[in-house]
Structure formats: structure tokens, C-alpha cells
């Protein structure tokens, strides 16, 4: 089956549907690379000495590194036929610690049709969870998803 046929379309997603992604460890290398790509070299992420005197007690991963990794973690479902990523909100509850192994719980919380009949809007709740079961980030991602061709 080709890539296009094997995807999940707007019609395939149901409110309440949820799944857990794969897990991934956050390493110091991930933090360096996020700094390199983003240009965000703030000391709480890059400076061990500074990190030791910060509230987290150590240097931590960037909060947006957590969001980036959550978007790329493998899901146990076919790829979603995303037309565009429209936006997100996220509450950063706990620091993303180097050495944490994180996964994401993703739930379809809302679906709505638009004026254009080739697409729909799907709101996912995305919770980022560490190895202790602690939710370190929680928020929503809004995707524009293709509808099946009539």
C-alpha cells in the first residue's frame, strides 16, 4: 500500500481515541543540538555550574526540546494525513531533565469541519510523561488534516 493510502484521514480519527508513543531518553547531546539549531544558549541549559545553583539543581533540557521530541516520537498508529500544524499551547510543569526517558500520551479531544471540504481541524491533547509517570508538560496541538477524497 502506498504512503497516501496508508494514512489516517480526518474521518479515521475519533474524539476520545488515544495512544501512547514510543519512549526516548533525553541526552546531553540532544540539548547541545537543540541549542545549535535554535540558537537558544541560555545558561540553565548549557552551563552545568549555573544549572547547579538553579531551582532544578542541574542543567536541564529546553522546554521546547520536549515539545519537539514529542512531535517526532513514533506512534503505534499509521501516519496522520497532516496538511498543516496550526498551533499549540503547552504548560511546562516540571523541568525536562537530562537522563529522563519520556513518552507522550496523545488524545483526540476535538474535531471540527471547515468551509473547505478537503480538510478538517483536529485538536490533540499531548502530555509528556517521564519514567516515573510524572506529566512534565501538558497542552494541545491543533492539526489541519486531509479528508478522504470523494
Amino acid at each position, binding site marked *: 500500500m502506498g*504512503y497516501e493510502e496508508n494514512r489516517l484521514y480526518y474521518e479515521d480519527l475519533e474524539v476520545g481515541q488515544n495512544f501512547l508513543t514510543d519512549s526516548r531518553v533525553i541526552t546531553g547531546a540532544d540539548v547541545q543540538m537543540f541549542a545549535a539549531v535554535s540558537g537558544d544558549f541560555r545558561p540553565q541549559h548549557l552551563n552545568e555550574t549555573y544549572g547547579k545553583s538553579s531551582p532544578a539543581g542541574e542543567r536541564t533540557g529546553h*522546554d521546547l526540546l520536549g515539545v519537539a521530541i514529542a512531535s*517526532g516520537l513514533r506512534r503505534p498508529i499509521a501516519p496522520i494525513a497532516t496538511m498543516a500544524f496550526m498551533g499549540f499551547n503547552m504548560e511546562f510543569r516540571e523541568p525536562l531533565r537530562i537522563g529522563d526517558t519520556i513518552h507522550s500520551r496523545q488524545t483526540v479531544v476535538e474535531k471540527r469541519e471547515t468551509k473547505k471540504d478537503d480538510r478538517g481541524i483536529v485538536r490533540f491533547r499531548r502530555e509528556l510523561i517521564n519514567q516515573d509517570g510524572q506529566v512534565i508538560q501538558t497542552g494541545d496541538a491543533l492539526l489541519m488534516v486531509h479528508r478522504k477524497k470523494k
Partner: protein
Amino acid sequence: MDKEGRLHYGDLQVGEEFVSQGRTVTEADVVNFSGLSGDFNPLHVDAEYGRNHTIFGKNIAHGLLGAAIMSGLGSVSPPLAESGYVNIDWRFSAPIFFGDTVVLHNKVAEKLPPEGNAGKVVFERKLKNQKGEVVQEGKLTVLVKV
């Protein structure tokens, strides 16, 4: 301002706006972001798919790459004495194409009363491209030291 040139809670005035330097978003940035995040959606990494199967007619940068670059430009414009982000509400209003140059407009929107030695400051941020179009925008709340 402290000896490292970072602004503290009391240095920030509501309504004040900081404009960053520009940054050109290249294909290399997109490939690096795919490698880092694991997001290899063909929207970003498959040129044939970009040409023939997207509403844009070409590949676009990851929305979250734009958000990452927003945080990088914002980390020095202005430099803040802060202990981290509290929350973000962020909208991808228009795509960022390879070769686009983005600039961050970073405005102090609100200062909440300090609790202890830090206070929450809400920044209204807009990422604009070389045509002056807003490509991403939203609010970022940062805990800034008093």
C-alpha cells in the same frame, strides 16, 4: 540590569518591544531539526511530495523549528535573568519556506505581581518574514528574577 547585561523583572516596562536580528531558515536547519526531533514528515523532507501533494506547492519548515528559532532569537533579544518558561500559546499563521528570513518582535505584554524572588512576565511575540508577514505568533510566559 546585572553585570552580565541581563534584564530583571524591574527593568521590563509593559508595552516595550524588542526586535531581534534576522535569521535565514535553510534546508540544513530543517534536516537538523528532523534529525533532532525524529519528525521526518514528507511535508518537510520529501521534495517530490512537497511539489505535488501539499497545499503550498513546496516543502515547508517544521512549525516547531520556527518556534525553536523564536526561542533562540528571544534568548538574546533581550537577554533576561530568568529561571524558565511557564507556558506558551503559539499559532502557526503562515508557512516558513526554505530561504525565508525571520525576525522576532518581542513585546512585554503583562507583568504579574512577583512571588518571592521572581515574577511572571507575559511576552507577546511575533515572528515576521522578509515581507513583513507574521508567520508565527503567540504568548510566552517567562519567570523573571526580581
